[in-house]
């Protein structure tokens, strides 16, 4: 039982990471990761929606016929995103002004439909909830990483304007890596995003291959 949960966690965070393994959600990814703070905002908003949508899809999975599942999922997810959007706008307006842009982009995030289709529709509610949370956290980590790399090279700072997203208590996160940096525009624009994603993807492949080689070596010696 524990092994299953560990498997789901590992899948979400590393082995089957939304960005670096499934290669999903690249459109909102490139749009918002011009800074680490933006990546974090998008990641947290997506995690919330992914968790809720996995729970809902999983709890209605008995009733949904396979033939019409896709339109049903789309309707449910779009409704969920709209509800989150409206309630944030009404009751957490300050947060909405920061996250509003990201919430609209979640609707076009194919990772959410992807998880509904490939996991939540086949597994129990508890498993689906854990999967949604872990996939979301893995996505958040990837976004912050990509945003951080682009921000350091693009504008010489890290977590700039974090207090706008997380409140004044988190202003300590804001660091200037390179003082008096002139800026490297390419990294902030979408091409820089593609380059960073490509390089990080290659790095993950190298790490995975080395680990597989090491495991094979140990197996051979044993």
């Amino acid at each position, binding site marked *: 039982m524990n092994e299953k949960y560990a498997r789901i966690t590992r899948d979400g965070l590393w082995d089957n990471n939304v960005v670096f393994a499934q290669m999903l959600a690249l459109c909102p990814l490139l749009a918002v990761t011009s800074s680490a703070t933006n990546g974090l905002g998008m990641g947290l908003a997506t995690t919330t929606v992914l968790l809720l949508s996995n729970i809902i899809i999983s709890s209605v999975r008995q009733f949904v016929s396979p*033939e019409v599942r896709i*339109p049903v999922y789309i309707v449910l997810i779009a*409704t969920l995103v709209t509800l989150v959007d409206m*309630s944030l706008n*009404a009751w957490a307006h300050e947060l909405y002004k920061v996250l509003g842009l990201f919430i609209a982009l979640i609707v076009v995030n194919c990772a959410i439909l992807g998880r509904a289709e490939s996991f939540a529709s086949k597994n129990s509610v508890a498993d689906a909830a854990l999967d949604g949370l872990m996939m979301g956290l893995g996505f958040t980590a990837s976004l912050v990483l990509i945003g951080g790399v682009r921000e350091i090279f693009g504008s010489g700072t890290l977590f700039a304007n974090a207090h706008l997203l997380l409140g004044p208590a988190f202003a300590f996160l804001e660091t200037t890596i390179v003082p008096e940096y002139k800026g490297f525009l390419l990294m902030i624009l979408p091409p820089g995003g593609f380059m960073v994603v490509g390089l990080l993807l290659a790095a993950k492949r190298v790490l995975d291959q080395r680990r597989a080689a090491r495991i094979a070596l140990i197996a051979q010696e044993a």
Partner: protein
Amino acid sequence: MKLEELRGKLSYQGILLGGAALLTSALLSFFSQATEADIKAAEAADLKQSLSQVLPGEYDNDLLKDTVTLPGSQDEVLVYRARRAGKVEAVVYRVTGYGYSGAILCVMGVSREGKILGVRVISHKETPGLGDKIEPARGDWIHAFEGKYLGDPPADKWAVKKDGGVFDQFAGATITPRAVVKAVKGGLEFFDSNKAKLLDEAGGVK
């Protein structure tokens, strides 16, 4: 199982899809009504806050209700008027500049003497890291307008330094500040040509 047999039937699928659509749209319309008032109130508070940034000082009327719409150089301009004891002391309106990548929406406050009280950028799509220094959160540049009027600097100096004017441009971004300066100058010209109507003094005090 009975449910499994049902799921294969065409009529069940139709009802399921229709039911899901009905349920979600009902939920959405209910939620939309429940949040409408709160969203409107939050947006009004937002507007008031952005207006008060370019209107230092105390005024005794409800800005959002005391408005007048006048034809501007491109389209109609909605003007908010701030009064003290019935007299219009300052006006606030929006001006639009066209920068490197689309419209730059600004709001400016002008006193009854025609001096700029403040300018703020509401929305823009300028390059992050270069053109976005027009936001007060990212630079002091926008405060350079405060206290200026047509005449100080003289009309031909209402431009960025590169064009022989008095306002700074940014390293690597001239088009953005140029657009904002032009928009603000246009806003002052609008004030000059509509002064009587803006200050509500055309036909005496109402």
